[in-house]
């Protein structure tokens, strides 16, 4: 494999958006293996890549592969997310949940105002997105330093998705309460018991997202 051939394969993969680590590495190996194994050694890399594209079902087929890969990771991570979340309500992790519940209850007694919880929830809901972004940035820098072609991982985006999907509406909700103060929202937020339960669930979910991201980052959890 010459440098020029390597570059052509990389460009092919980038052009077809197979530019995340898991996809890039698997398809790079596939193409190199098939190229080395080609029956007609006179065939150059460009015509070989055309054959590869055809076998992959053209641009449409490659898009399907990309979507299927993301969906597969999504399924694995949402299953793991549920496992991690419920583990906070089982021994020994339930101790953490009780500790959070106790702390929040005490806070409601010391600061009996919904404003504090609104801002607390805002801060908490931002944590997974911030940490997920940090992991993604760290990986990006590592790839640049090592001269890798890819800059991101499918697993990072799959682990970040639940945090984005579920904490974002909460974020919007709290913001709208703070800014516009609708009657229903105020009634709900003035109910301290409800606020406590909601805050505990939010903190537990945030911790779940953080654990999921840590696992994705340290590669403990991979579909690989």
């Amino acid at each position, binding site marked *: 494999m010459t440098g020029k051939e390597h570059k052509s394969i990389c460009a092919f993969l980038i052009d077809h958006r197979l530019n995340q680590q898991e996809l890039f*590495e*698997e398809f*790079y*190996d*596939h193409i*190199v*293996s*098939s190229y080395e*194994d080609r029956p007609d050694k006179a065939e150059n890399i460009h015509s070989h890549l055309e054959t*590869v594209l055809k*076998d*992959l*079902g053209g641009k449409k*087929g*490659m898009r*399907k*592969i990309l979507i*299927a*890969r993301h*969906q*597969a*990771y999504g*399924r*694995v991570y949402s299953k793991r997310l549920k496992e991690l979340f419920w583990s906070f309500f089982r021994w020994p992790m339930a101790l953490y949940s009780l500790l959070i519940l106790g702390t929040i209850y005490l806070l409601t007694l010391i600061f009996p105002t919904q404003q504090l919880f609104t801002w607390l929830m805002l801060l908490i809901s931002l944590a997974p997105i911030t940490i997920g972004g940090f992991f993604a940035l760290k990986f990006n820098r590592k790839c640049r330093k090592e001269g890798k072609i890819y800059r991101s991982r499918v697993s990072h985006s799959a682990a970040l998705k639940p945090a984005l999907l579920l904490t974002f509406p909460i974020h919007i909700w709290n913001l709208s309460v703070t800014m516009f103060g609708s009657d229903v929202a105020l009634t709900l937020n003035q109910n301290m018991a409800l606020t406590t339960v909601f805050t505990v669930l939010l903190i537990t979910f945030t911790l779940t997202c953080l654990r999921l991201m840590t696992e994705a980052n340290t590669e403990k959890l*991979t*579909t*690989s």
Partner: protein
Amino acid sequence: MSSSKLLKGSLATIVMRLLEEQEKMYGYEITQKVKELTAGEFKITEGALYPTLHKLEAEGFLTTETQKVDNRVRKYYSLTREGNAEAKSKVAELEAFLVQLQKVLNPKPSLG
């Protein structure tokens, strides 16, 4: 109809059966093994193979490990314990289906 279209529905079973035999294989190796076993009659397209592998992996039937080969990363697939049980059941299901299909394609003349 091309053999590829007929193969599509049985692809997961074929992949799992091969992994039952070989313990661990990588994507390209699977396509070549099928080609070799069928003397080139069956050709698994990569466009169908990888989504199948990724789906089986997400369902917990396959596990993967990576190895560095010739300065590149190679991803090997192998069956999990659940995958082994699923492979046996899928192969049995396909065999039973083929028996029934054979009856439909070659009906024996009735004696009565």
